[in-house]
């Protein structure tokens, strides 16, 4: 009895030893040479594997970054400049710092402003809803409210507000990975520069219908009056297809467009003081008078 146990232990240990030696030599012989910097870079990355950089995950990002001639096409939106500084140091590159970005919703058609005109009882998915028809409001461009963006966000930064049926973005949690931008069938979410001290201006509407049609669909719609376009002195407003868009690289945050907008479709975020519309309008009027004189 003891003999059997002893022999079993001896044979199995011997087998283990022999195989270990064989495996050791095989591993030596067929070793895959990998750039050690890949591991180093991967360690510095957040490890969320969110895909916001455009690669399949953090490891894929690291292997691609090692082979790249510069870091132009590689940026980890989650880690931001701090992480990219470390990555650049490992690779010996000079880092071009990017302005931090955040997702913004370009629709402000809350339930109150945009009445529902029919009932949708299909699958609760924006993509499905958009494939069937223009939606349960008269606006064919606005938020469908089924929460595809909420489901796509890996960081819990988006939540559909049950009162407005619009998603709300938690600026602290948003990493600008762009998952929501891809999830929205109406491309209502956009990554925009956070702006100096978090201040930014944007048009919260994408309705391309003519004014009266847009207005009938939603009280908060951009009606394509072009007032902001005519007011802006920085050339930051692109006015096309009955809707305005603010180019954040040119916007100087003077808030004149916001003050002049008749429907409140232009939103200012992060400003320390609420907008005094009358004061801004007065300023514009005086400037125009001076120009005329």
């Amino acid at each position, binding site marked *: 009895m003891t003999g059997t146990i002893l022999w079993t232990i001896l044979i199995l240990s011997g087998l283990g030893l022999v195989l270990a030696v064989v495996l050791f030599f095989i591993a030596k012989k067929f070793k895959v040479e990998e750039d050690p910097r890949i591991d180093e870079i991967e360690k510095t990355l957040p490890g969320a594997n969110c895909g916001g950089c455009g690669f399949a995950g953090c490891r894929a990002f690291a292997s691609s970054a090692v082979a790249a001639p510069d870091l132009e096409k590689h940026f980890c939106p989650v880690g931001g400049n701090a992480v990219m500084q470390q990555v650049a140091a490992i690779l010996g590159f000079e880092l071009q710092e990017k302005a931090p970005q955040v997702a913004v919703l370009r629709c402000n058609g809350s339930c109150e402003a945009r009445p529902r005109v029919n009932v949708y009882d299909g699958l609760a998915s924006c993509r499905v809803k958009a494939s069937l028809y223009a939606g349960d409001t008269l606006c*064919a461009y606005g938020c469908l409210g089924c929460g595809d963006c909420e489901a796509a966000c890996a960081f819990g930064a988006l939540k559909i507000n049950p009162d407005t049926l619009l998603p709300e973005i938690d600026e602290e949690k948003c990493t600008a990975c762009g998952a929501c931008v891809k999830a929205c069938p109406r491309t209502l979410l956009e990554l925009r520069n956070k702006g100096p001290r978090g201040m930014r201006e944007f048009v919260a509407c994408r309705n391309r219908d003519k004014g009266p049609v847009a207005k009938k669909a939603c009280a908060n719609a951009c009606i394509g009056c072009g007032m902001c376009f005519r007011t802006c002195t920085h050339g930051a407003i692109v006015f096309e297809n009955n809707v305005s868009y603010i180019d954040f690289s040119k916007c100087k945050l003077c808030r004149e467009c916001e003050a002049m907008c008749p429907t409140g479709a232009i939103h200012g975020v992060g400003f320390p003081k609420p907008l005094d519309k009358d004061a801004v309008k007065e300023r514009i009027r005086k400037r125009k008078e001076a120009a005329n004189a």
Partner: protein
Amino acid sequence: MRKITFPIGGVHPHDSKFAAERPIEVLPLPAVVYVSMAQHLGAPAKPIVAVGDSVKTGQVIAEPGGFISAFVHAPASGTVKSIAPRKDLAGNSVMHIEIAVEGDEWMEGIDLSDTLVTAIPDDPSAIIEKVKACGVVGLGGATFPTHVKLAPPPGKKAECLILNGTECEPYLTSDYRIMLERPKEILIGAALMQKALGGCRCVVGIEENKPEAVKVMRAAIAELGLADIEVAVLRKKYPQGGEKQLIAAVMRREVRSGALPIDAGAVVQNVGTSLAVYEAVQKNKPLITNVLTVTGAMLPAEKQHNYLYRIGTPLSFIIEQAGGVPEGAAKLVSGGPMMGKAIANVDATTVKGSSSVLYLDAPSTVRKEASACIRCGRCADACPMGLEPFLLNRLCKAGDLEALEANAVQDCIECGCCIYSCPANIPLLDRFRIAKGQVIGAIRARAAAQKQ
């Protein structure tokens, strides 16, 4: 009587043909018509009139915007009020020409008499030209330009023209009524298409629940002495009127995945299209009228209608003429209950393919809550394309496009048999539609990359 049908799948919804005994009535002209520029498959048409122009009934007001596109004609005479985007029945903006109707003055050269013109022109290309010039598109639902279908690519030959008189969708009766009331015109239209296709046999497929139509069509064939046209009686099964299903039923042939009916030697045309071809070639009348059914289970017999309407008449006008939306209607549908589209906007206009205004009550249309798949396999039994909807649904959720393509989601004909048969009320088709679009997009992108 030998009854044939397609071999796999299919469901048997109640046919609910309430309007079958109601003769076709001519709908009066509305005060304003809105003519959509995107009422056919393919590129939208380009308007060639300007605001303020006066147009006559049957005048060309827009020309094709591409190879697969069609001419559009004025459905009534009057003045062009505007050319602007307007909401279609799904609520999306589409370019429309608005015409304020002033009387009904037709273009010269259009034969409005009832005399039957039986002489078939000798030149096939002249027939196709005429069909194209008159803006004829497939009236079975897909609105594919007919002249493109009648000119198969070189090297391919049509062996059989199948006239689709199955009307397998429940409720709809417009095709049935035209078969009863205008059988000779339909058959001459078929003979014209046979000529255009270079001579082939023709089979008219009619489902067994329309024995009157079978009788009338057979009598008309005998009277006209058309030797190479026959009527096939099909067993009642949805979706018999699907192009591929009809070919399988009539010719016992399967159209390969990704292939066109012409590859199997078949050309399928709806009976309504055939009538439009007759009117275009023999009467020089463009496609500006069609027949539409106004029906619903809650409507009394006298409120069921089959209307001959001018294409461009607003839906709201038709609803008003038919006595308004009945009590108990929970959903308005344009088309049949299986494949039709919900009307989200009653101010939308009718288009060439409009076949009905259907009122559905809440129990038959409101979706029940979905529960988990129990793998009963009913959807796989029901699918007429031999797909496995339960598997496709899982793949759609996972977003696995490669596996979806391998499992042929692109072959889905969107007939809705899977949803209809699912005991767990899973919205199967909703997901497939999107996956199908993505897979077809990927296939096209690959083909384009290969070409370069």
